[in-house]
């Protein structure tokens, strides 16, 4: 029940962290849906692949920065130390950044193919964005259940 009783100094960094995380996952869902749609619909492939690329550039990457800045801010306020749930959060965030960069590069390559269809790069973007969504669900579980 610790989450119920929270010092007011933690509220703004927590808001920044949670809002960034929600926008991050929301943007990833848009990227996954648009990229998956591009694989299924030949006529719309170029438009949907471009949405996926822009979603990575203008949605996922900026919201990752907001989420991560909020995470560092709240971690410094709480001084929680080296706990399991913090470790899960950092692990997912660090691994997630690497996968996000790879997915962005691949989304850009898929978008450049234009009417040629998204190809293998487009399929990889769908897989990577789905993997990232699952990883962030695990991180959300760690943040709420706080396993020790």
């Amino acid at each position, binding site marked *: *029940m610790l*989450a*119920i009783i929270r010092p007011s100094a933690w*509220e703004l960094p*927590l*808001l920044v962290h*949670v*809002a960034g*995380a*929600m*926008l991050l*996952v*929301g*943007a990833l*869902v*848009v990227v996954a*849906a*648009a990229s*998956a*749609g*591009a694989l299924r*619909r030949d*006529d*719309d492939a170029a*438009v*949907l692949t*471009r*949405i996926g690329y822009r*979603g990575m550039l203008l*949605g996922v990457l900026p919201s990752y920065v907001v989420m991560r800045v909020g995470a560092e801010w709240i971690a410094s306020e709480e001084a929680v130390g080296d706990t399991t749930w913090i470790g899960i959060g950092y692990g997912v965030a660090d691994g997630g950044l690497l996968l996000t960069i790879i997915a962005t590069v691949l989304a850009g390559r898929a978008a450049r193919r234009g009417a040629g269809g998204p190809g293998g790069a487009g399929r990889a973007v769908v897989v990577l964005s789905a993997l990232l969504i699952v990883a962030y*669900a695990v991180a*959300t*579980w760690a*943040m*709420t*259940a706080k396993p020790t």
Partner: protein
Amino acid sequence: MSLYEWLLFLHVVAAFLLVAGLAAYGVLVFGSAGEAARRALGPPALALWNVGGLGVLVLGVWLALDVDSYELWDGWILAAIVLWLVASGAGGRLARTVREGAADRPGVQLAIMALATLALLIDMILKPGA
């Protein structure tokens, strides 16, 4: 995991789904992709917004009943329910606009949904009066 931890986790996941629906609607309203985006993102936007919205409400009420220090008539919980109704009303209108392609000021509906959702998040974190 305790019941409280499960409820909190699922409540937060529902909020993530709600925001994902909002993000998808954002691309539909402000993007320039037209019919292609509507076909690919319209159904997931509607599903995410509806499932997330219902989950947030049901699990939030369950949490309020489960935690001894919360009551359903606490000011911050009543405010959250009002904000949920505002967001849902605008979401319903926007869904109809997207489905039927009607010109019902979709940008205004989306702005109401986004502001109400942001206010909900602030309310959940600050819990004024709790």
